């Protein structure tokens, strides 16, 4: 592998440096939490002060900071329904209760929530990316095992692999996830969250995530098996013969000769599978996890704002573009010999 070619990417690098520099400057000039909340109206402040003395609090204080812009809102529940919103940008604080400022504020807030900022890893874009990458990783591993099983000369092994692939491709992922999350613990008498220490408040999300990952990986394995199988079978028969004539065993032939050559041929299909899973990740709503799609749907139903889908699309596209680029690099890396 050659060292990174700086000359070839000069323009891109300069652009990236400028963007990063601008972001840093805007980020530094962005008003912080204190600045935004110092604008709180006296009426709202009164409610906040009242909260201090009571256990049932009434005011929700939100502060979202997103790179170059910040947003804060205060809203009260109960009889005194009030809300105030502020946006901070370039050293200035703007009241954001209506008009364009409100839309900007909403966008910041929606984006913040969909990215899963200020939440654990099993939330929003973090959940989507984590679930998707881990699924593809384990899916490809499992798929390779299944593909080798399916093309194996051992009939039983081939049958088991085929049956597995048939089952997982022939049934919906949503139901597979239900079975893993609800049915399996019901039968065997365990809870997913008990896999994590009881002291861990987020154990319930981690448990659900584990169940989702298992279901996703089992499912993706079946699809990846077909990808790996067709990649292996696309390798020239002469490669097997040459390896055999040199005395290499089946295992050596596969791991040293055939699979390394197959990888490049699988990448476009694995990349497709990745994008499919990225979108399928929204199915985790069914086991109480919140990915990008679920959060945007929730915001839509609870606030009736259809604007939420714009940042959602942007987030998906950024993720897709980033991983598309990554797969492209991997493919290039594996085709240096061509």
């Amino acid at each position, binding site marked *: 592998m050659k060292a990174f070619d700086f000359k070839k990417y000069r323009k891109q690098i300069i652009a990236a440096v400028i963007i990063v520099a601008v972001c840093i400057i805007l980020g530094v000039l962005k008003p912080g939490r204190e600045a935004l909340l110092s604008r709180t109206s006296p009426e709202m402040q009164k409610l906040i002060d009242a909260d201090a003395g009571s256990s049932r609090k009434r005011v929700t204080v939100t502060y979202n900071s997103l790179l170059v812009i910040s947003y804060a809102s205060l809203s009260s529940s109960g009889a005194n329904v009030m809300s105030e919103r502020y946006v901070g940008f370039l050293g200035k604080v703007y009241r954001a209760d209506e008009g364009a400022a409100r839309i900007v504020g909403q966008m910041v807030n929606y984006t913040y929530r969909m990215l899963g900022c200020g939440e654990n890893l099993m939330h929003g874009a973090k959940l989507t990316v984590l679930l998707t990458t881990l699924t593809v990783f384990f899916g490809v591993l499992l798929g390779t095992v299944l593909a080798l099983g399916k093309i194996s000369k051992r009939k039983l092994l081939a049958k088991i692999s085929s049956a597995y692939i048939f089952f997982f491709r022939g049934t919906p992922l949503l139901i597979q996830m239900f079975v893993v999350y609800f049915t399996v613990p019901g039968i065997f008498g365990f809870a997913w969250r008990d896999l994590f220490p009881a002291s861990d408040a987020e154990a319930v999300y981690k448990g659900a995530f584990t169940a989702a990952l298992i279901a996703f990986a089992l499912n993706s394995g079946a699809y990846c098996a077909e990808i790996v199988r067709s990649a292996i079978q696309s390798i*020239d028969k*002469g*490669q097997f*013969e*040459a*390896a*055999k*004539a*040199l*005395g*290499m*065993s089946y295992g*050596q032939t596969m791991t*040293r*000769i055939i699979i*390394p*050559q197959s990888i490049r041929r699988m990448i476009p299909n694995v990349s497709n599978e990745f994008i499919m899973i990225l979108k399928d990740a929204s199915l985790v709503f069914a086991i109480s996890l919140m990915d990008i799609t679920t959060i945007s749907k929730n915001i839509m139903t609870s606030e009736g704002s259809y604007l939420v889908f714009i940042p959602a699309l942007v987030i998906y596209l950024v993720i897709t573009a980033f991983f598309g680029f990554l797969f492209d690099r991997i493919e290039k890396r*594996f085709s*240096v*010999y*061509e």
Partner: protein
Amino acid sequence: MSESYEYILKTEHVRKNFGSLEVLKDINLSVKKGEVICIIGPSGAGKSTFLRSLNQLEKITSGKIFIRDELFLHRENDHTVDRLPREKQQELLLEMGMVFQRFNLFPHKTVLQNVCEAPIVVKKEKKDVVEARARELLSRVGLSEKADEYPSRLSGGQQQRVAIARALAMNPEIMLFDEPTSALDPELVGDVLNVMKELAGSGMTMLCVTHEMGFARDVADRVLFMADGIIAEEGTPEEIFGNPKVERTRNFLKSVLEV
């Protein structure tokens, strides 16, 4: 391994069917160490199939194969009747190097890695020992400076010479060549044949399926003419090329040499 055997390779009544098609009909051949044998004949005669049967790329339908006088494999009606233990078979198979018509180099490995792969992985030899030997072999086939290139950067003739070096790296006692120059542009054939000639001169036992009549005449100790799954005629190059006794041989040579 002492040289206490008479024939390094021998076949008796080897037959091979692909479905109802009889490709090999009764091949009997004995090869002594150091012999260079060229197999010629029209396409479809079963030459390649015979060669591939010897190192088990094809399973024979029936017949016996002996290596170093030991019964390597005996099959009847597509069933194995007798054979050496697997380990012993594997060991003897390593004594056979194979060169393919289409080279079959490993495209994801450099020239040097191609040559080193099997000795390191199969024979568990030390990497530096193998590399030194590989470089020697590459210089022997005239490709020292290409050691770190990928095969795709090489011409067909160069690739075939790497393939020969790769087979030689396993220190085989016998080399099988399956039409090694058929896939090459005419101007590249010479380099490969020169390497093969040099190899023959060094005393290597060789079995070559070839269409290069000039090569067969110059280098072979014995020439076999195969047609329709049998060895129709065999003899010294002088006998075959100078005075073929069988009608089919005459016709074949006439058509080949006239072109």
